[in-house]
């Protein structure tokens, strides 16, 4: 039982290591964010399963599951927040396809006026502008 748990936990730790190596080696903020959120969630998943196998008491298993549940709720949201902040700060790096900029341009130049408007993000003046249109 100890060896199974240690094996699963080692797998989780290796996933965390992969995330750290990706964080160190990739070239722009959005790629680093992508590798970090996915690999770290999976790494904590395997680590906590390993903890639950190594320490099979109801108390420990419930706490490990609670930690995992909170983190799996929070990581996508915080990844989205950091990604949006990075995009708004202009840290797009080697981004090839920028659909948000296209949608913003469409919405601003009064193109199709439909789908792009909901994607906009700005100050309150922008909102009133849209109202006047």
């Amino acid at each position: 039982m100890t060896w199974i748990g240690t094996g699963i936990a080692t797998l989780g730790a290796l996933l965390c290591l992969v995330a750290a190596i990706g964080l160190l080696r990739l070239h722009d903020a959005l790629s680093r964010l992508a590798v970090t959120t996915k690999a770290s969630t999976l790494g904590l998943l395997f680590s906590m399963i390993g903890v639950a196998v190594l320490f099979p008491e109801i108390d420990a298993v419930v706490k490990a599951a609670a930690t995992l549940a909170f983190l799996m709720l929070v990581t996508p949201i915080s990844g989205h927040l950091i990604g949006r902040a990075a995009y708004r700060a202009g840290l797009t790096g080697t981004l090839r396809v920028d659909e948000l900029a296209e949608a913003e341009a469409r919405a601003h130049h009064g193109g199709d006026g439909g789908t792009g408007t909901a994607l906009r993000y700005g100050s309150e003046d922008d909102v009133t502008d849209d109202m006047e249109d």
Partner: protein
Amino acid sequence: MSPIDLPLGILAAAFALTLMRIATGPSLADRVTAAELAFVVLLAGIGLLAARLHSTHALTVAVIAALLQFIATAALAALLLRAEPREHELP
């Protein structure tokens, strides 16, 4: 020497790499991303330490830290939105 020391050592290496990115990260967004990963590595480490010491109290720390992480990251993202100069102002 418990076998759990092996994943703990790997997590320590991951934590060290993350700290390097925090130290050298060119932009604030990289540092925030690295801090988030460091936090997850820390959570996994606390869990494994709890299994190694056979104590539930360390896992309580992990639960509370996981709850606090969202507040920390949201605050850092707000800071990031304010701190970085905008290259392209929205029309």
